[in-house]
């Protein structure tokens, strides 16, 4: 089941369907086996795939994550350059600094019944021991690396549990949240923004502003926060509390994200928000939330039609390109290479580990990323 899920998309994309096993195999074992896809002999790769930084964590209960640099499509020799320990299970998410070989990662470290503020920010690089830079970070979030290499994270402390009366009124626990700017070398923290609410999710950054999606008991909004002086600029003062999967379009100075339709709770939409005015335009919609937009070069946007039909590009011209390199499923674009020729993508099917791959924007061919079969993989980004 698991292995077919991983292998089938690539095999089918490469015309190897007949070689697939007919029955599902057993669930993955704790000790990893290589999750390597057949290399396409006929598929042309005009540009050499760039190197990427990957974080491998054993699933389901791995308590150690390994940083690996890999150039997909080449001999999949891979070397873990460093690893760090954290709580078993849970999500580990990373981000590279300026295509360099420093990776920042967030993972759960504090065992708590409510994991909200139990994660930490780590600095990882070859030849050095991992460094814990910040604690009290929100679980399962990704660090946001700024141009100067400093890192933004969402941190906080649990508020009081709602009283019985408050609970009956519909209150959830309100936490004391900060957006902190962390020095990448020393871990020195500077609070840019304070917020009392449920979450202050880092949606991206443009120029000197961090874009933050905030949810509080009586409101949800999107604001831009100056990363130097913390000044707040309202972009969407009041939106439904269903925003997710944000992607900044630098060229067009806008933010793509998914939100729920305001009138029909069964409909989800990709919206583009003008980062100068806050004006929002609906781009596409579907019946699942997994539309997962990502800004593409030339003003286009990648998304997944109806939240299950794979990588599709809506060009700025309005033309739709259904690419679906691995077929049905959801393709989450993790990033684009600096030269704009490659996308790093995670292909996911519900209830299964996602499959990472590179996608050539020149040939529209997928290139497999080698990963242990039972590993949870995170693509931290492209490196030099």
């Amino acid at each position: 089941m698991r292995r077919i899920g991983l292998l089938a998309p690539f095999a089918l994309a490469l015309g190897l369907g007949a070689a697939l096993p007919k029955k599902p195999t057993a669930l993955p074992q704790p000790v990893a086996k290589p999750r390597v896809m057949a290399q396409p002999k006929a598929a042309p790769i005009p540009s050499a795939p760039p190197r990427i930084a990957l974080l491998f964590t054993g699933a389901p209960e791995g308590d150690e994550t390994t940083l690996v640099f890999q150039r997909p499509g080449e001999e999949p020799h891979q070397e873990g350059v460093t690893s760090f320990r954290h709580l078993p299970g849970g999500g580990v998410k990373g981000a590279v600094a300026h295509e360099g070989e420093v990776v920042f990662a967030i993972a759960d470290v504090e065992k708590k019944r409510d994991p909200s503020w139990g994660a930490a920010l780590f600095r990882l690089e070859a030849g050095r021991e991992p460094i814990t830079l910040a604690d009290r970070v929100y679980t399962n979030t990704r660090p946001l690396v700024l141009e100067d290499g400093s890192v933004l994270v969402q941190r906080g402390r649990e508020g009081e549990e709602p009283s019985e009366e408050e609970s009956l009124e519909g209150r959830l626990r309100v936490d004391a949240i900060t957006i902190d700017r962390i020095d990448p070398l020393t871990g020195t923290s500077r609070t840019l923004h304070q917020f009392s609410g449920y979450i202050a999710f880092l949606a991206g950054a443009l120029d000197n502003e961090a874009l933050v999606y905030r949810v509080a008991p009586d409101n949800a909004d999107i604001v831009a926060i100056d990363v130097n002086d913390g000044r707040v600029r309202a972009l969407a003062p009041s939106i439904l509390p269903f925003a997710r999967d944000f992607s900044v379009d630098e060229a067009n100075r806008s933010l793509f994200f998914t939100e729920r339709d305001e009138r029909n709770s069964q409909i989800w939409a990709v919206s583009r928000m003008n980062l100068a005015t806050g004006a929002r335009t609906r781009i596409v919609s579907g019946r699942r939330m997994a539309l997962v937009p990502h800004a593409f070069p030339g003003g286009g946007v990648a998304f997944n039609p109806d939240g299950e039909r794979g990588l599709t590009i809506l060009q700025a011209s309005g033309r739709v390109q259904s690419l679906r390199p691995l077929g049905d499923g959801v393709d989450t674009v993790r990033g684009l290479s600096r030269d704009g020729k490659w996308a790093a993508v995670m292909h996911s099917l519900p209830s299964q580990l996602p499959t990472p791959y590179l996608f050539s924007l020149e040939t529209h061919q997928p290139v497999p990323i080698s990963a242990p079969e039972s590993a949870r993989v995170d693509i931290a980004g492209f490196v030099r």
Partner: protein
Amino acid sequence: MRALVAASAAGVIALGGASAQAFCPSYSASSSSNTHGCLVDAVPGTNPTLAEWQDIFDVVSKGPAAWGEHGPEIGNIGQGCGKPEPLESVPPRFPCELLKAIAMAESGWRQFCVPDRPEDQKGGASRTIIAFDCGYGVGQVTSGMREKDPAPNYDRQRVASDPLYNLATGTQILAAKWRATNCVGDNQPSKIEHWYAATWAYNGLAYVNNPANPVYDANRGVYNPSVNTPAPYQEKVFGRIEHPTSPDHWASIELAYPNPGDVGTTGKPPALPEPTCASPTDCVNLRASHLSFCLGGDPDPEDPGSGGQGGAGGGTIGVDDGGIGELPGRPPGSGDGRDTRDDWPSRGRGSERSSEMSSDAYVVSCSCELPGGRKSSERGPIAAFLAGLALVTLRRASSSPR
């Protein structure tokens, strides 16, 4: 630094994993590591066998009427939410499937084990499992077990020493959460899915368990413990019911989920219609809701089908005007102020809603439900494509008004 040498051309990386079963804390009252004020010392005991656990779950699921003096007293809970059954106060009872999954998530069905932490408690006789935060035993009962807590209306010592009493005490807390949360469907305690909001609250009314929290994958689907994708607590419990630890623990049940577009407000879950979604992230494919097998339910409820009537058991999908609790305020910025639930009754006609979405160019109408009840995503893409094509053809052929 750790060099991961490729053991073959493929590059084998061995990733260590921790076993949740091996984890056995015992932060006993007398431990020098008891920093949270745990009040009761661990009690020596042998963990019940699988068969004994089954008997315990069976008794506890039937509530105080079944356990008598072997558990604490629990007040009545509400049943019915006017859809159509009017609210009435009834003795509490609990789906055994839910209790089993919660207990598996909390303790791995362990009241007693040989401690592996803290240092001064390691080894020795098997005794009460006590988490660092004073979660005691199989149900990880925390409230009332710490110095800072007011005196509870149960026997703390028995929570530590008696698996049945411990589990029954856990249901006392669950019943309190049932009372404190809004109706799901028609608020039937014997229906597993109707415990969605109470299960969320059992872990704390925090936003981290909100299915609309953007930290969770939009395509995560039903939680599978063998994959362990991050998910809200209540989804983990429901996913465990579908993915049992073994067939000897419980039979798999494919639970239905509330529409995430309804659940994720800025407060606790509002009153919700009958859950009919096939997963926490998929309301295109539908599922029936389930009566607990321990409470007289049919293990094979009627299948709502992807093109048939929405909701099992005739679940009415309509506007809820409260019952146990009041409706919270309308989500901010909800356009014209119309409650989105006004749209729900139409969903009962089936899953094809493409006509209502015709203004959006990229809404695809095929739900691609395959024969046998499995989703297309679980089959190969070619099979899914062919089945989907056939289904679309069939649906289009039969789409004329009845």
